[in-house]
């Protein structure tokens, strides 16, 4: 594989799968905040 192709593949993975991880973290954290609010 050319360097250019490797870089683009890694960037694509980081952006898309990184975005998914961030979205999951946001959802989990938000759920925890909601739970604390309900319990208060």
């Amino acid at each position, binding site marked *: 594989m050319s360097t250019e*192709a490797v870089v683009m593949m890694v960037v*694509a993975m980081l952006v898309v799968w990184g975005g998914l991880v961030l979205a999951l973290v946001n959802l989990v954290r938000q759920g925890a905040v909601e739970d604390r609010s309900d319990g208060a």
Partner: protein
Amino acid sequence: MSTTAGHASEHAEQERRRGGFSSRRVFILAAIGSAIGLGNIWRFPYVAYENGGGAFLLPYLVALLTAGIPFLLLDYAIGHRHRGSAPLSFARLRRGTEGLGWWQVGICFVIAVYYAAVLAWALRYTLFSLDKAWGADPEAFFFGEFLQAGDVAVTADVVPGVLVPLAVVWVAVLAVMALGVQRGIGTLSLVFIPVLLVAFGVLVVQALLLPGAGTGLDALFTPDWSALASASVWAAAFGQIFFSLSVGFGIMITYASYVDRREDMTGSGLVVGFSNSGFELLAGIGVFAALGFMAQAAGTAVDEVASGGIGLAFIAFPTIINEAPAGALLGVLFFGSLVIAGITSLVSVIEVVISAVRDKLDTSRLTATLAVGVPAAVLSLVLFSTTSGIYVLDVVDHFVNQYGILVVALVSMLVVSWALRALPGLAGHLNVHGRPRVGTGWRVLTSVVAPAGLAVVLVLALRDDLAEPYEGYPAWLLGGFGWLLVVALPLVGLALSRLPWRSGTHLDGPPPGADPSAPATAPTGARTGTGHSEGGLR
């Protein structure tokens, strides 16, 4: 009991009868199952390859963030706030827009009828993979021995090899639908989505270990930056995002209506949107690694073997399976993944129709399933288990996607954004429990950027179809199963919107207690079946 409390209690009972997802996890898996379909596996890799390779990532991400996810959140907000199928949600948004919901229902019915046929092919090919039944010439086998496709004509010559798996698909799908939202769709998603991820993950690893895989990935990811100057490349990115995310034709409205009122729909939408794109990227890697192997084995360049759609699945992959070590395993994983991805999408498409029928007529789940499923199955078997099935399928698929989904999505967005000016109210609803908050940016993206992107895709598609007949098919086929169908669907939708709602249906804005963003003094009287609009800008 006060009137307000009485209406709230009545509505709670109606919601109980409608059913719903038991948890956020089940809803997210079901929504991911709907979004991840055949297009993720066989459409995205080739679209990316054809439109700049690695450079396509830029317009693709722009389309995802500026149009796909904002539009997904719009669908979620409409369904979650108004607690109904697409027609009921639009009727509650404003009575006169109910026809938009039925238009979406009509599109889903048509898609279900032909989508099941492709699943039947994939199901049969999963079994064919075990002994590579297609032999040395997969193309001749697919069109000849398997589909028995003859001249372009509509025939009644049944192909038993397609009829039987198609009947199996319909029996399985209707059984799932009869079980209901949680026990049927929810359980199916809980089991099948993890299985899909594992199966496809194994397939990708196997493909990456094949000789020549690097050549395929090189072809997919080497960027052609000049492509970014082309409007058609940007249109391809917006088109891929729209077709892939299942937005704009009722699915996400329907699924969102089954979610707990306190759920974070914005956060859930981000997870669904990125999961869909994450799977597409995985599919791109797996498919092009396999195509690289195919090119090396044939001693040609990747561009000689690269293909998408039916050609990729039923011709290129069998060729790869013939040559690859442990090819039978590769075949079972690939076609099994197609079946699983397809079936979780198919149930979501049919649910749009069943949910609408149940809301309108107040029928039981089983009655609605049979009332929708039996005619759909019969039509599917009659049209697509014959020797002319592939031609009809190709034409219907092209026109319903290009001029059914795109047009109804565009019209819905424009109506909600500009005619009803409902975005502030919908944003307020999303923000009650949703994070991150949506604001002016989301409203601009949903009312301007996403419609503009859709409009460009639509104009370019129309230009191509007017310049020359799609795939060279005869005018009678394109007219009868293409243009006539896409013109008839909104008219049928309009006619269905004239039918009365079942007695007691709340049509006066969001149902009582459904919209925590509403002021405490908001009117909650259930004017049933009246022409009142919510018009609610807060």
